[in-house]
């Protein structure tokens, strides 16, 4: 880790929602000049689903430019294309059209270089559940060519920060709560010191305490670690608290992109609605949060 815990910590007492004025100032600047951390140009991805072989456009002509050091939020209903976009950047899907660069590396031509600088935390903490956190993290570290001893020391440090003691590292993961498993998943992603961290609904399904721990940790990362973070979430308070900018994605398209404050101001000025992210989300997607939680995931691709 690059001095993850040596840097001064922020004074954030975890809160679910902070008004704009209380949102803490970031300690590390966003580098708007130079090579962007993530550049997506006119990215399109289609899937053929069902027996009728009907193509579904999961990501439709999406362009993004995310500078180094930014926390970039992606909001959207289930099936809107958020996770597909994350998978495309993670090199887990191929592009049908467009191009993606991570720190200037094309994800198709320089796949291995991209893989070395990214990592991802998904909504489900995918592990070998019979193995302990230590065994799972050692496996992950070795895959990235890291020394196992150093990885263990880093893992202990990160997990301690997330509230998991060293003595729990030897027990099978299946004996841990969902929240603790997700924290181990975050530790796994951070072990490899990614400069682009893809967080795909990392707090969905977590209990309030775990959610706060994870959110506080993301804030700490923002201020102490040289990482750009892309965060997809259903939690509007979380997006407002953590993200420098937010894109709202609907039916595979980015329908609006701006800072949380600008989005709220825009919807208040243009539509006369309450200046909240929820108003902005409903305005630009035509969906309420209830719809969001009830929809099926269009990304699902069965045989």
């Amino acid at each position: 880790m690059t001095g993850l815990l040596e840097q001064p910590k922020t004074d954030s007492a975890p809160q679910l929602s902070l008004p704009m004025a209380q949102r803490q100032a970031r300690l590390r600047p966003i580098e708007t000049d130079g090579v962007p951390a993530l550049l997506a140009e006119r990215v399109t991805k289609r899937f053929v689903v069902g027996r009728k072989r009907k193509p579904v456009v999961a990501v439709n002509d999406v362009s993004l430019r995310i500078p180094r050091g930014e926390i970039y939020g992606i909001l959207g209903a289930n099936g809107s294309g958020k996770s597909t976009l994350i998978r495309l950047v993670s090199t887990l899907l191929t592009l049908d059209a467009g191009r993606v660069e991570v720190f200037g590396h094309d994800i198709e031509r320089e796949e291995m270089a991209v893989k070395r600088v990214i990592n991802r935390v998904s909504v489900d903490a995918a592990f070998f559940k019979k193995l302990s956190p230590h065994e799972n993290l050692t496996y992950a570290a070795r895959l990235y060519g890291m020394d196992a001893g150093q990885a263990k020391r880093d893992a202990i440090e990160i997990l301690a920060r997330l509230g998991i003691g060293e003595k729990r590292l030897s027990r099978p993961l299946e004996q841990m709560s969902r929240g603790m498993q997700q924290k181990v998943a975050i530790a796994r992603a951070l072990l490899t010191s990614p400069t682009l961290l893809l967080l795909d609904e990392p707090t969905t399904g977590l209990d309030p305490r775990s959610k706060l721990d994870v959110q506080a940790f993301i804030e700490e990362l923002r201020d102490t670690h040289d990482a750009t973070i892309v965060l997809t979430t259903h939690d509007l308070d979380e997006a407002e608290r953590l993200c420098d900018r937010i894109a709202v994605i609907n039916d595979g398209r980015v329908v609006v992109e701006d800072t949380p404050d600008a989005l709220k101001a825009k919807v208040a000025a243009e539509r006369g609605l309450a200046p909240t992210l929820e108003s902005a989300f409903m305005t630009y997607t035509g969906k309420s949060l209830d719809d969001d939680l009830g929809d099926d995931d269009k990304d699902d691709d069965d045989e």
Partner: protein
Amino acid sequence: MTLMTRELRASYAFVERNFNLTKRYWGWEVAFLVYAVAGALAVSLIGKDQGSDRLLLTLVIGAVFWNYLSVVFSFIAETVAWERWEGTLEYTFMAPVRRYTQMVGSTLFAVAYGLVHTVVVLAVLALFFELDLSRANFATGAVFMVLGSFSFIGIGIMTAILPLMYVERGAQMTFVLQSVLLLISGVYYSVDILPGWMQVLSHFSPATYVLEGVRAGLIDGTGIGDLFGDVWPLLIMGTVFIPLGVWLFGRAERYAKRTGKLKRVG
């Protein structure tokens, strides 16, 4: 860090992970071992019952070497299915690891695991029966075991792509293929008794040549030099199947990424 160091560490990741999983699933390992030993004994006892030392040795060799080859095959072939079941497939494929590095690690563990498994089965059979190995040529047996390993590793890698391409059916196909190999390879009988069309198929199974060669070596004491007819198909299969398997695996990975098949299901 050199590329070689990085790749070796990554290869070792698969060895260590599989070792840890084997350790954690020790109850199942014991169950599988008991099943393998019981199966080998049950088949070999037919030879004892018939009062034929040659039949007994034929069956023991079939049971022991099929156990080894099938363990190696299934461990490699289930590499993807296993990760899909655990939900870790995307994480392994997202890591900066070359496929041949992954295959080397999976293969090393599979061979080591297969050897340990087989030694246990062999030890129990040796305790049960007074095997007449006075004429045995052990060098011949060892050569065929090594050659057979390469061929089965290649087939295993090629089979491992099935669960990549077909989320659930792939694992089922792997199981069916293993069953077909058992049927056509003359594990417990001569392939000469098979129907003509099955005898044709038996020529495409490396197990056919391994078992013929091992039996000739251990029962009749035949040297490797006199078994070239069984050696060259294995040499060709081993040389062709492994690179072909890795290449096909790459194509299947590309297909899975195009169609979204790497995603966790269930």
